[in-house]
């Protein structure tokens, strides 16, 4: 059975904006699924409809076989939601937030308290249980929202950009935690702007742009199709002009940084051999963090404006995250 099945989902907002143009999507039970797309693509709108915070205009949604029109409560009971924007009661204590949420899902008081404790401990927030939520840092609020989404042990966990604004260490531990609960059987759907995140966590992926699914495949298949990787090489000495590297596009970013494209079928060995031959010594090397950008370039004809903003966002994220990868 599919954890989620969407058919012809359409959303037109009150102001006439069409955010979703009839999307179809299936997520298998047990999957770790990424919904990837640029700003305003319709990710949050889709998730809003799944979690009944947004009214759909047309289409059908089934959650573990429960039709959201006919069996809304049964469908809702299967889902745990971590929204994109903080929606906590600032004056409520952490423990109370979780106990209440468990109560809304029908857990008896005693059970609710047990679950609240378990979830707060698992997300590393137990020490703060008597604090009010407005005293938490941004990253802690995000973790609290994850704890809150898990308090009723949902079969399907939906996270809308869970790692936005979370530091690298917490991000790593969040990733590990999500993988753990996925391995234990919870189906997970997350949205992200970062292909790296999707690649690290997810098995399957849908790419959404301007309210349409433009790609829906496995991460592996997708990455296999990406036929170029760009590496940044830090050089030992300064170069006045780029070395001769037949078969590779390359350019000097600055006198000691070289950007080289490696296409499918080319080997790094031959690249380094060619560099050595010309007396160029490479001190270190890293991926240029632009693979999402390339992906979008391949999948959609992007106008320059959006490309620029994607690049800027990624640069910001790199600065904020201290350069993941």
């Amino acid at each position, binding site marked *: 059975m599919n954890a989620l099945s969407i058919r012809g989902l359409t959303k037109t907002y009150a102001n006439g904006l069409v955010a979703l143009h009839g999307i179809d999507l299936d997520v298998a039970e047990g999957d770790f699924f990424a919904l990837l797309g640029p700003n305003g693509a319709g990710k949050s709108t889709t998730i809003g409809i799944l979690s009944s915070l947004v009214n759909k205009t047309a289409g059908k949604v089934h959650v573990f076989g429960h039709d959201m029109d006919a069996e809304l409560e049964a469908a809702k009971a299967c889902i745990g939601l971590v929204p994109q924007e903080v*929606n*906590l*009661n600032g004056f409520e204590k952490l423990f109370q937030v979780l106990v209440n949420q468990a109560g809304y899902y029908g857990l008896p008081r005693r059970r609710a308290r047990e679950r609240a404790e378990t979830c707060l401990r698992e997300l590393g927030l137990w020490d703060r249980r008597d604090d009010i939520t407005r005293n938490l840092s941004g990253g802690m609020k995000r973790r609290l929202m994850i704890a809150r989404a898990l308090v009723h042990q949902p079969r399907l966990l939906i996270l809308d950009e869970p790692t936005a604004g979370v530091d690298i260490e917490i991000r790593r531990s969040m990733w590990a935690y999500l993988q753990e609960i996925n391995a234990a059987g919870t189906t997970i759907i997350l949205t992200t702007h970062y292909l790296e995140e999707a690649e690290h966590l997810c098995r399957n992926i849908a790419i959404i742009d301007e309210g349409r699914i433009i790609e829906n495949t496995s991460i592996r298949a997708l990455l296999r199709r990406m036929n170029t990787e760009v590496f940044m090489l830090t050089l030992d000495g300064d170069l006045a002009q780029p070395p001769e590297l037949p078969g590779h596009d390359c350019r000097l970013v600055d006198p000691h940084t070289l950007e080289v494209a490696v296409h499918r079928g080319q080997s790094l060995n031959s690249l380094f051999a060619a560099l050595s031959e010309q007396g160029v010594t490479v001190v270190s090397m890293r991926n240029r963090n632009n693979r999402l950008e390339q992906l979008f370039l391949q999948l959609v004809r992007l106008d320059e404006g959006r490309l620029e903003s994607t690049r800027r966002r990624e640069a910001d994220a790199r600065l904020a995250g201290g350069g993941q990868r």
Partner: protein
Amino acid sequence: MSFWRYYIPFETIVIRETQRYTRIWVQTIVPPAITMTLYFVIFGSLIGRRIGEMGGVPFVDYIAPGIIMMAVITNAYSNVVSSFFGAKFQRHIEEILVAPVPNWVIILGYVAGGVGRGLLVGLVVTIVASFFVSFRIHNLAVVVSVVALTSVLFALGGLINAIFAKKFDDISIVPTFILTPLTYLGGVFYTISMLPEFWQKVSLVNPILYMVNAFRYGFLGQSDVPLAVAYGLIIGFIVVLFCFCLWLINRGTGIRS
């Protein structure tokens, strides 16, 4: 099984609402107690002595039920309007909206919270009043049922206000421009038989008049309006407002885009 499925979320909302207004009791319980004490001191003890009797009883005894009712109405209303609007504003209303809680349970939960605060404040004011007033109780069942039903009615009113409210101003407009005037003109301080005939007729259009008078009947055994009409009106209003409220939340007015 199915009872608990609805009862637990209901209970959760009620407990949370109760915790909210008791936690901020200085803002929620104390002010009405002080205001109402002033009414009793000024209208009851100071001015009331000169007025003498109203409707055959000392003035302060006559106005006491209306003042209690006024406190109940205001607090039942404002508890729901500020709590629900606050939840919309901070968006934690989404915590309930994503959960498998039917909309009628949400309504009942918030209304019960408002009724709880209305009755608690009513009780506090009654205790204050007992220092100034010699309470007689003509019919306890009427006292209890009228105050309970009235607080349900105004808690529903507060919820509808909160559903439509888009900014903080919107939650004070109705209390200031509609509720307070209607309450003052609702026969809290006088019997409408004192008014010229035309204004008597006009007063009868004011629903709060019926609630105040029915409540007063429970204490003093006298009313400007028939009791059955008062009950019919209150219950009728409750049914209409509840249905309207349910319809609004089902549509997602003000809470879902």
